[in-house]
């Protein structure tokens, strides 16, 4: 509320101010018109797809689910991210914090669990899968490690006739998805189905074969080698008592692996899990299912700073596992050669002016009794088996030097991806790296320039079917996020293999799908037809649209009806309009409801579906995407 005299905002340029009609003479200072032909402009508006490392076309697959076209929804996912059934359960889901819905109300669309719906109800999709060529192209590729990164490279390259050999030290493929992600989150059948689908495209598998020398692999004259061996070394904690208690102290990821292969089937009654990441959450929940009665998680930092995803913490707490924060392990207490407890010093966090955190001991100490400790304090990518004299350079932290775009190391023809490249990430990043590496490998093998990346495909299609009819459901649904039903706690805690989440049934799925705002249906503005009647500005429920004097970006953002303070979101600026003003739309919280287009008398606004597809190396693993492109 203005309570002092502030000059009225600039009124219409009428006679009194001289008529500033006609298009820009280039003199008006301010932002240049937005280039909506840049494929990344509208891509960025699709927050979820933009945030997904593999750029899965989320809103389109959600619409397919709403139409009960599960197989088609599955295939769009499979082409983008190779493991929809797996990811629909355990993806780190960077799309969800990005989801526009989360900025309008508190909770994003349950994008991940809708992906699972596509997988659960897809039926038989074998006939929709790409057909492999009968002829090989004569090029041989070695993939080291059978995690999601390598499997993606295999899936992308096999249709081009590459001969693929996959080396894996474990007896089966899948990497950490098999060895570390517990089956109560990811059932073996789901894992097998999607891993086998890739392997059965024609991969030569060498399971149970550990690579101990990269040189010897290179000696076999492969045309390219892809290192997808992950980050297999769990960090340890060398404090008093570590050596004496060794038998009862386990490295989290190794322990989960031995559980996965049934080498470990029980754990002590009193278990302390040290660490605050997702591995810690999997360790504690697994321990609870292997007979742990008093399972506790301890974290050095305040709980708010824990690395684990919120939903993982929620699940652990729901199962009754307490989390002790600000507990820094000082000593493993050993009596008569046996571990009997862990001594912690209690910490407190202090933040300096820049917000940087310092953990300081309070002086207080506490000891928790235990008979087993699971250490989940991080992982490294480690390469004792890579010789340092083969032209493959490492940096000062013993990490291979890998190009961010091409995934190639300093030795031409050797590529990295997934956790092996820059340390632990997640499955969807491993997949994205795999796609990028496959493009590079193909270029490398065919003598192309690997720095020359293929342009993405995109297409913008009007959704107008009538004056107020659109080919998408534009009605905003005020529904809150739908909770996923869970198995009975008693049953799931008693059996490691029982999946905790039951997934949405079709009814719940439809309810949740309706929450999606269709952010890919873009508001497209045509300056030349706008008569500046303000109808769109007046109707917009979230005050996105403005007609104003142009200015530099910062003052322009500040001067909007609701200032556009979310700098991560672009503002869409038109060319100069008849009155000399410009249209400025803040993309931030647009509901994509199409009311602007419905209330525009001249069709200056149109709702157009933007389909964006990352180009992959082979067309046949992209057929469902290509169908959307011109």
């Amino acid at each position, binding site marked *: 509320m203005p309570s002092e*005299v502030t000059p009225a905002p600039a009124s219409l340029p009428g006679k009194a101010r001289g008529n500033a009609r006609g298009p820009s003479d280039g003199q008006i200072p301010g932002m240049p018109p937005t280039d909506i032909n840049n494929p990344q402009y509208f891509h960025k508006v699709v927050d979820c797809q933009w945030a997904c490392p593999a750029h899965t076309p989320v809103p389109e697959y959600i619409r397919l689910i709403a139409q009960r076209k599960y197989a088609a929804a599955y295939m769009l996912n499979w082409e983008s991210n190779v493991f929809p059934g797996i990811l629909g359960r355990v993806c780190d889901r960077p799309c969800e914090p990005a989801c526009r819905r989360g900025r309008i109300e508190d909770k994003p669309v349950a994008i991940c669990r809708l992906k699972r719906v596509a997988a659960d109800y897809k039926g038989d999709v074998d006939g929709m899968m790409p057909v492999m060529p009968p002829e090989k192209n004569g090029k041989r590729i070695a993939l080291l490690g059978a995690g999601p990164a390598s499997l993606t490279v295999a899936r992308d390259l096999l249709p081009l006739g590459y001969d693929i050999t996959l080396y894996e030290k474990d007896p089966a493929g899948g990497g950490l998805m098999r060895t570390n992600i517990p089956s109560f989150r990811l059932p073996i059948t789901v894992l097998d189905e999607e891993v086998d689908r890739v392997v059965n495209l024609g991969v030569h598998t060498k399971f149970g074969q550990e690579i101990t020398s990269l040189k010897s692999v290179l000696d076999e004259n492969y045309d390219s080698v892809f290192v997808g061996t992950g980050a297999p070394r769990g960090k340890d904690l060398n404090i008093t008592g570590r050596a004496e208690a060794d038998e009862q102290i386990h490295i989290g990821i190794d322990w989960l692996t031995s559980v996965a292969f049934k080498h470990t089937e029980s754990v002590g009654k009193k278990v302390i899990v040290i660490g605050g990441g997702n591995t810690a959450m999997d360790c504690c929940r697994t321990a609870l299912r292997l007979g742990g009665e008093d399972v506790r998680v301890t974290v050095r930092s305040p709980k708010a700073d824990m690395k684990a995803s919120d939903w993982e913490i929620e699940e652990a707490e729901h199962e009754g596992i307490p989390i002790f924060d600000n507990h820094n392990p000082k000593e493993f207490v050993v009596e008569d050669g046996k571990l009997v407890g862990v001594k912690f010093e209690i910490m407190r966090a202090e933040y300096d002016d820049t917000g940087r955190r310092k953990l300081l001991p309070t002086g207080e100490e506490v000891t928790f009794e235990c008979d087993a400790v699971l250490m989940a304090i991080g992982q490294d990518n480690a390469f004792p088996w890579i010789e340092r004299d083969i032209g493959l350079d490492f940096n000062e932290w013993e990490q291979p030097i890998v190009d961010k775009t091409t995934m190639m190391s300093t030795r031409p023809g050797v590529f990295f991806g997934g956790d092996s490249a820059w340390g632990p990430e997640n499955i969807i990043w491993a997949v994205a790296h795999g796609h990028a590496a496959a493009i590079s490998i193909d270029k490398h093998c065919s003598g192309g320039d690997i720095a020359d990346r293929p342009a993405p495909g995109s297409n913008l299609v009007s959704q107008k079917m009538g004056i107020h009819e659109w080919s998408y459901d534009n009605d905003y649904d005020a529904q809150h996020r739908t909770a996923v039903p869970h198995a009975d706690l008693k049953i799931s805690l008693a059996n490691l293999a029982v999946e905790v989440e039951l997934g949405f049934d079709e009814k719940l799925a439809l309810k949740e799908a309706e929450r999606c705002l269709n952010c890919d249906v873009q508001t497209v503005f045509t300056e030349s037809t706008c008569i500046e*009647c*303000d109808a769109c500005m*007046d109707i917009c429920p979230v*005050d996105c649209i403005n007609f104003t004097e142009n200015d530099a970006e910062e003052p322009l953002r500040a001067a909007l009806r609701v200032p556009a303070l979310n700098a991560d979101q672009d503002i869409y600026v038109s060319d100069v309009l008849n009155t000399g003003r410009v249209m400025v739309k803040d993309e931030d919280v647009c509901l994509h409801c199409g009311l602007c287009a419905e209330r*525009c008398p001249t069709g200056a606004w149109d709702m157009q579906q933007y389909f964006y597809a990352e180009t992959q190396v082979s067309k046949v693993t992209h057929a469902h995407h290509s169908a959307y492109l011109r």
Partner: protein
Amino acid sequence: MSYIQKPAAHHPALPKNKLGHTRRDYEASMSTLCAGCGHDSITAAIIEACYRMDLPSHRIAKVSGIGCSSKSPTYFLGRSHGFNSVHGRMPSVSTGANLANRDLVYIGVSGDGDTASIGLGQFCHAVRRQLNMTYIVMNNGCYGLTKGQFSATNDKSSPSKKGQANPFDAIDLCQMAISLGAGFVARSFSGDKAQMVPLIEAALSYNGFAFLDILSPCVTFNNHTTSTKSYEYIRDHYQMTGRLDFVPQMDDIKVEYDTGTSTDVAMHDGSMLRLHKLDDSHDVRSSDEALMAIRKSAAANEVATGLLYINDEQRDLHDVLATDGRPLNSIPMSELCPGSDTLAKINKSLA
């Protein structure tokens, strides 16, 4: 007309006024007018003005006649009182309501047909009686609702969409209002919220008859290239007489009368108008100068807009009639209807 409702979801950072309401809280049903109708922009400006003035919706009464313009009260202030009356009869309904309850804020909405044709007589008397209300004419030069016939405000030079000539000269409602003694007269354009919103705020805080003639293109029937009430024509022939700031609380602002470049007008309710004059603009306190200015612009084929005239000493109808200070609904029944003995006394005194 859209099939979907405007979602209740709003921008999470939408500011609130002193009553804790957002601008959205002053909305009502979604408009059923043609897309692009100027009336919808005036609706939005009324919403904005009420929001900015922290007006409680339940203390506002909207009264209208018949026409697309007169439908628009359905689209703003959904929690206010409203009476959609008969064609041309908004002034008499407003007069009755106002006499019964002087405490409400009255917004009369009418069209050029509703006011300048069938309701002209009613309009004249509401002005003459200095009814305390804001009277808005959404002026599109035609009868929009009945498919675009010429109205009495359509310019002689402005043929119909199909090319039919208009044989009569236009009635200029602002000139009429000034001549009839309106205390506050302004003209604006639906396509110029920056000008419209402070004018509506000023009109709402004015104690007396405040008249707003707002040019409001009818996109469907009177927005063609030969119309003088089209978006394009109005923009091309738009003349601002000055710029107005509405200052809701003048406590800490010094009122500076007539500095040469600006004129300050203190309002009854503690607010203030500060009018920034443009070089050759007239004295807004002089009705003669105001009438001259309007005529001069018209002769030059231009439309004078802004605050055209203000009489800051006007007395409103209740003042003139020296009515009871209370609205009827707060006067005890025994006073309102003193009974047959009192009646007999009165009759006797007349005998």
